[in-house]
Structure formats: C-alpha cells, structure tokens
C-alpha cells in the first residue's frame, strides 16, 4: 500500500479533473474547486501581466527627470494608479487564497470540494465583473487618484473613470469576502477525521487567518467606496470638508481595511513558505504552534494598527503614539516566523529546487521588508519618510518581494500537481535568480531615494535623484526579463513538460498523495491523516521517479509521536 487512495500511482488515473468533462461550458459552469482555481490563476496572472507593463512604463518614464513627449503627467498619474489598483485588487489579494488556495486547500483537507461550490464560482464571476469595471473605467477616461482614493481629490477633481473603478473595487471586495467566508466554513467543517487543528498544514492556518481578515475588514472598504460613489455623484457626503464632513474619516475607514489587507496579501504567502521550507528541507517544521499562533496574532494585531498610515495626517498626537506602539506588536510574530523558518533549515536535508529558491528569496526579502518597517513605525522617523520612495520600497518588499514571490514559489511548488507536468528546473532557477536580483536592484535603490527625500507619485523630479532612478529602472528590466522567462518555460511545460509524479518533492501532506493532476473528486474515500510535517515514511521510488509515502508507517509514526 503506497497511497491512501487505492489507485496505483504509476499508472495515472484514467480520468483527471482536466479531462473529466470537455468543452468550454464544462469550464464556464464548473463547480469543481480545481477548475475554478485554474481559472482564477489564469485571470490573476493575466492581470499581473497588465499591471507589470504599467510598472515598466512608469519606471521607463522615471529614467528622465523632466517631461517626456510620450507620456504626459496625467498619463503618468493614471499609469501608476492603474498599476497599484490592478496589483492590489486584481492580483495580490486573490492570488494566493483564490487561485492556489482554491486548488490546494480542499485536497490538503482530503475533501471533495470547498463547503459552498456555487458560492465559489459566484466569487470568481464577481472577480471577472470587477475586472470589467476596471476596463470600463479606462474607457471612461481612466482614474488618477492613486490606489488609495483619498478624498476630496477623488470626489472633486479626479478623472472620469473614478466611479466605475470604485464600483469595481466594491464588487471585488465582495468576491474576496465570499472566498474568505467559504474557506472558513470549509476548514471548520471539512477537516477529515484525525486532522486536528494542530495537524493541519500551516498553509491552511495562514489561509484561515487570512479569511478572518477578509470577512471582517473588507465590508468596511465596501461601504467606504460606496459612500464615496454617492458623495461623488451628489457632490456632498460625510467626507466632504466644505459641508462639515471629514476627509480624514475616509483615511481611517480606508486604512481600517487596507492595513489588514496587507496581511491578506502576505499571510497566505507565509503559509506557503512554511510548507515549502519544510518539504524541501525534508524535515519537520520547527515550532509548528509558534508559527500557527503567530498567523492568528498577526491577523488580530492587523486590525489595531491602521493609524500608522496617518502619522502626518493631523490625527491627535495621542492616537499617533498609541498606533505607533501597537504597530510594533506586529513585528514580533513576524520575527518569530522568520526565526522558526531558519530553525527548520537546521539539520535539514535541503534541496535547492526552484520552489525552495523562491522560499529562500522570501526569507531574504521579507527580512528587509520587515526591518525597514521599523523606521516607519517610529513616529519621528516616519515623519521624514512618510510618502517618500522609502515607503514605496518598503511595501514593495512586503507586497511583491514577499507576497508575490511566495505566490510564484507556491505556483512552482504545486505546478506539477496542478497540471501533471514538470517545468525545466534549469530555466526555473535562472528565472528565479533574475527576478531576485532584478527585484533587489529595483527596490533597494528606492530606499535611498526615499530617505534622501524624493516624494512618491512624482512625474518630474530634481536631477540629483536621477542616478537612483536609473539603477531602479535597470533593475526593473532585469526583473521583467525574469518573469518573461518564467512565463515561457511554464507555458512550454504545459505542452512539452515531462510527466510529473504524484509526489515530486517528497511532501507528506495529503495533496501529494493523490495523482498529478488530481482526479475529479480528489479522493475516492476519505483519506487517513498523519502528521503532514513528518517525513519519516517518505521514500524515493526509482520506478515512479518521485517520492511515495508509506501510509501505515506515516500514521503509526504520527500516533506514536515519533518522527520528530
């Protein structure tokens, strides 16, 4: 007995989720979480391409300090706004939970599907509708508010496409809410017998913590943009200072969502990294409980720190001090996670496959992203750094260098599972190296740019900043090349990739114990569960060209508490 499922692993299941039914309609109306996950993945990566092109346009403009003939100030403002809005609302927020989480989570749980499959499909179409609103906004003249939509600029001055994009954000918010709601119920109600909370993979802990934030914080964003739309339509509202409203109230509402949203982005990434590091080190994750509880701690603290975006807004000094103090509390669980990942490497058997390279890149980049948050949390230094490129660099290290790099690492980790093919390991490493190097060149130079005082969202700038911009733009081209290479070899693998074994990396969680790609109903019978970080019963099998898990030994080891 090598698998939990009775199907022999060497002969692929005759039928997998990709071939189960055929035709366009079988995708459009599918309720299968795997197909919905794949559709999300395609949609998110397409948006990532558009957002990336916007970023490269912005960076290319910034090679020149003055005006350029091919991009006016208004076009520049729209380009960076579009870049931000696409990357936040269409890419990073849905990337890990909705795309990877949808695909992997039910399989990790040994379940047939998420708790509410129809709602899941509905969420996806809400996402599509939100994306259509973004296109509608472009046709209506674009929007140039920055992704933060600060009033009164967004209600009185911004370009004509502002209302459509706000409607889009509202719809995307509900897409995110329903995904989160679905996942919470799935994790509560569909865990198989034997999978206690502390035997649940850390990826699921992270998804769970994320879902809590999605459910609690996103409605506030929803109502905020709805009130903004009403205010823009009637030229009056509670954020309008001329009628007794309060523009800073908008900032409070906005950041009450948008700060937790940062953790909606990065927490699932941390979950992926916990799994990648353990699997590719072939050893038990270090300090499971500390990592798990730190996810929950981050989720809880994330609701209490939004005011640190507003140290210069004129909120009372007492509030500033309180928010600064609470902000530091987020640093602690984040640090705990980093130390635990390091300790997981200790006495491991570390294979430097592409997913692991992304995992190690994450630790490097997240460390920088986290540490540079400290001068931004200290009020007196933040006053200098606020709204400069230092902030831009900091949040790119966290949102892109951490959240997105983890997503791409996770994509490589589960790619063989999702599509049943292996990508080129050689080109995978080249792509990762280029992205890593390009990323650091792009954004590290922006730390200096910012601490030297260059404000963000500037179309023209003083010549003294030009050298940093040149370095940064050069780095962005390298990073762009890395992503192009990655796209090419991943697409190539779909058509010409080597067939993937069920378990190419030696994982012990449930998703590695069904065939690649998984069959339509994941598992014929509810699987039995051991400790998903116990690799003592995982063996390389020459015939499979992959790893196999000895289920009996795996479960016996978990019950006896050995294998640690």
């Amino acid at each position, binding site marked *: 007995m090598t698998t939990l499922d009775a199907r022999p692993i060497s002969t692929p299941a005759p039928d997998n989720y990709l071939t189960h*039914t055929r035709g366009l309609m079988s995708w459009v*109306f*599918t*309720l*299968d979480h795997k197909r919905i996950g794949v559709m999300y993945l395609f949609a998110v990566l397409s948006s990532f391409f558009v957002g990336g092109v916007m970023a490269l346009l912005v960076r290319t403009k910034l090679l020149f300090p003055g005006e350029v003939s091919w991009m006016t100030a208004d076009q520049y403002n729209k380009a960076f706004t579009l870049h931000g809005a696409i990357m936040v609302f269409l890419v990073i927020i849905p990337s890990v939970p909705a795309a990877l989480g949808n695909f992997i989570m*039910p399989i990790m749980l040994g*379940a*047939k*599907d*998420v*708790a*509410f*499959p*129809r*709602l899941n499909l509905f969420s996806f179409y809400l996402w599509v509708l939100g994306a259509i609103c973004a296109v509608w906004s472009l046709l209506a003249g674009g929007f140039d508010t920055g992704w933060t939509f600060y009033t009164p600029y967004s209600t009185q001055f911004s370009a004509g496409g502002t209302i459509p994009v706000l409607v889009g954000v509202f719809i995307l918010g509900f897409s995110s*809410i329903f995904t989160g*709601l*679905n996942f*919470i*119920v799935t994790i*509560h*109600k*569909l865990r198989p017998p034997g999978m206690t909370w502390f035997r649940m993979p850390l990826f699921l802990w992270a998804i769970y913590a994320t879902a809590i934030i999605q*459910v*609690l*914080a*996103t*409605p*506030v964003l*929803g*109502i*905020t943009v709805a*009130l903004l739309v*009403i205010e823009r339509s*009637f*030229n*009056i*509202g*509670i954020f309008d200072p001329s*009628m*007794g*409203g*309060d523009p800073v*109230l908008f900032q409070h*509402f906005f950041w*009450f969502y948008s700060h937790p949203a940062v953790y909606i982005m990065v927490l699932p990434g941390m979950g992926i990294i916990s799994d990648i590091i353990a699997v590719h080190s072939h050893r038990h994750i270090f300090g499971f409980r500390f990592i798990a509880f730190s996810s929950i701690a981050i989720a809880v603290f994330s609701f209490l720190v939004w005011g640190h975006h507003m140290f210069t807004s004129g909120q009372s000094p007492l509030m500033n001090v309180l928010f600064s103090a609470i902000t530091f509390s987020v640093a602690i669980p984040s640090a705990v996670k980093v130390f635990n990942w390091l300790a997981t490497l200790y006495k491991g058997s570390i294979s430097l496959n592409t997913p692991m390279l992304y995992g190690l890149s994450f630790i490097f980049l997240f460390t920088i992203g986290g540490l540079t948050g400290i001068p931004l949390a200290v009020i007196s230094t933040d006053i200098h750094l606020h709204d400069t490129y230092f902030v831009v660099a900091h949040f790119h290290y966290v949102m892109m260098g951490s959240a997105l790099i983890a997503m791409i690492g996770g994509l490589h980790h589960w790619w063989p599972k999702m599509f049943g093919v292996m990508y080129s390991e050689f080109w995978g490493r080249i792509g990762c190296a280029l992205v890593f190097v390009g990323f650091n060149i792009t954004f590290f130079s922006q730390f200096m740019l910012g601490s030297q005082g260059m404000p963000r969202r500037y179309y023209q700038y003083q010549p003294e900043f030009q050298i940093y911009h040149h370095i940064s733009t050069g780095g962005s081209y390298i990073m762009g090349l890395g992503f192009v290479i990655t796209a090419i070899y991943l697409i190539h693998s779909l058509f010409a990739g080597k067939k993937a074994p069920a378990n190419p990396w030696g994982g012990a969680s449930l998703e590695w114990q069904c065939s690649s790609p998984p069959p339509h*109903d994941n598992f014929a019978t509810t699987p039995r569960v051991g400790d998903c970080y116990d690799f003592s019963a995982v063996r390389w099998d020459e015939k499979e060209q992959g790893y196999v898990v000895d289920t009996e030994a795996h479960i016996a080891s978990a019950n006896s508490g050995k294998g640690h």
Partner: protein
Amino acid sequence: MKQADTPFDNPAARFEAGRMGMWLFLLVLAMLFGATILGYLVVRLDNGDAFIPIDAPSPPPILLASTIALMLSGFTMQRAVHAARIGDPRQGAMMMATLALAAVFLAAQALAWRELYQQNVTVSDNLYGWTFYVLTGLHAAHVLGGLPPMIVTAWRASHCAYNASNYRGVTYCAMYWHFLDGVWLVLYATLWFGSVR
C-alpha cells in the same frame, strides 16, 4: 451532466455548514452597517448642533409604522420556521405574511422619504438629509436584496416543501431577516437621537 453542488455527504452536516456560512455573512453585514453608523456618529458629533439645519423637520412619524411592520414580519418569519420544522402547511401562509409586511415596511419607508422631500430635505443640500437618505436607503437596499430568496422560499413553502428533515432555506431566510430587524432598530435609534438638538 449534473455536478455535485456540495461536498457534504450528510444533510445535517450541510445544514450546519450553511448556518455557519450565514452567521459569517451576517458578521460581514454587521461590519458594514457598523462602519456606516460610526461614520454618521463622527460627523454628527464633530458638527454638534450645527449638523441640524435650523428649519429641519425631525424624522417622520411614519417611521414608527414601518418599525412595527418590520417587527411583526420578524414574528411571522419565526412562525414560518416553526411551521417548517414540523412540516406544518401553515409555513406558506406565514412566509406570505412576512413578505406582505416587508412590502408594508418598504412602502412606509418610501412615504417617509417623500414626506421629508416635500419638506425640502434633499440628499444634496446638507449632511442632515444626506445621512438620513443614505442610512435608511442602505437598509432598504438590504431588505430589497433579501426579497428574491424570500420569494423563492415562500413559493416553496406554499407547496409545503419544508419539513423536519429539510428546513434549510427557511432557516437561512429567518437569520437574515432577524438581522435586518435588529439593524433597523439600531439605525432608527441612531437617527432619532441624531436629530435631537
């Protein structure tokens, strides 16, 4: 081909999951209304009595009628759930009564709007009018949004579709409806106190 629309093999587990999902959804709406009311309180307290224009009328008394209608509908809704649980055929009548009361509520809200509008309180004049229309409008939108599933449930109930082994639909509707009842009471109290100088 018919696709499985639930991963649960057993109906009781499915019901439980549905209830949990519904609770979470109500939590979402609670955050939404909570933020709106908080926003109202901030501008109300910031502006003090200047918030209320000199000639502003107080909230129309017809709101009292709509409140009573909504509370009554909560009662009939609960009767419907009880009837559904035991497969009692009165479930259809009770659901219909709930729908009728919902219609009365919406009509009363519309009258309240008209009354204020006739007294020259408009949405674009000042925050006093703006907040009134937006807050009551937000609640009314949720009542309206709840009607389609309520109508489907009422139609099924009138065919006596719910019984002890399946009363999911009517239970979910009841949860949503009671929630809107509660939100209205809070909203009404807030608006009433907000219009007191």
